[in-house]
């Protein structure tokens, strides 16, 4: 099954080449050069994984992560950054990031994370459906 990935980074050269390499590996890639653009795209469609730069103009990666998780708790967000500190990593994981990678990242490792993200998301969505069903069944006087 083709993975759908949203790649968010203010370095447009990076976005372009990453998108090309991922597409060549059968991934459906959408790009966003800012947090605002990413949040707009998330409103319009769902993704198996969001790969997010930590340091971006105006709204940074952690703030963007917080908004994404509030809007779509099932989203699987992988932070990819050139300025990683242990504190940033801890903050990101506390906010619900799936993983945290440093630039330059190994494409093989990133692809593994994307596969895991897709599997995680399917699991979370299944759990959400199960919860909904339980509520519907529990709410009726059979």
């Amino acid at each position, binding site marked *: 099954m083709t993975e759908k990935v949203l790649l968010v980074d203010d370095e447009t*050269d990076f976005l372009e080449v990453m998108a090309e390499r991922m597409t060549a590996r059968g991934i459906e890639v959408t790009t966003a050069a800012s947090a605002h653009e990413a949040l707009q795209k998330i409103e319009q469609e769902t993704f198996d994984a969001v790969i997010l730069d930590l*340091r971006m103009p105006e709204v940074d990666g952690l703030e963007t992560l917080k908004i994404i998780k509030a809007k779509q708790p099932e989203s699987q967000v992988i932070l990819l950054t050139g300025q990683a500190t242990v504190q940033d990593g801890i903050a990101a994981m506390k906010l619900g990031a799936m993983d945290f990678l440093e630039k330059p990242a190994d494409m093989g490792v990133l692809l593994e994370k994307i596969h895991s993200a897709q599997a995680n998301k399917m699991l979370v969505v299944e759990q959400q459906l199960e919860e909904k069903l339980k509520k519907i069944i529990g709410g009726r006087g059979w």
Partner: protein
Amino acid sequence: MTQTTDGAQLAALRFMGKVVAAFSHDFKNSLAIINENAGLLKDLTAMAGSGRPLDPGRFETLADRIGQQVQRADEMTRQINCFAHSMDKTAQEVDLSEMLALAAALSRRPAALQRVVLEVAPASEPLRLTVFVFGLQRVLYECLQTAISASKPGSQVRLSAAGSARMMKVTIAPTDAAEKDLTPPEKIEQLADSLGAGIESEAGCLAVVWRRA
């Protein structure tokens, strides 16, 4: 060592830390772009191995992209090297326009994060000044942070230098600030004073002024 001295040294170290962190972030971005372009070259070579024809134009584009990033990283290395040498001597004769170019480079990342562009207007003639360069850069950095924070996204901050027989002046002027008056950054006046300068807030901009007796 007094507590005040400790505080001043800590502030100077924090300034250095901020500058180095911003540069290392940009270096990492350059390396990441080089890494992905090199990866793409490998991908294309592997595809050629399985029968897909090689496109020389594509290789040229990728080589150009790598070259651009090498140039970017080389420029950053030159700038951080200049900054590292700014503490070699307590007094060096420098050209003020060159100092403004370095100050803009040191604040490039914080400006980009606010979507503010820094523009340096070189002086029409060389403006020579004997100063502790590290201290001067710190004063300019703090003034620039004030101007950047006050600026609206998409606007510019202009740095210019002018001199006469009676004074030398650096002006830091936001083109579109949220507030009309800029408050000079706290705790930096004393440092400016030690450089023989004063910080003035005038008509929506900040100025670092050296007055000659």
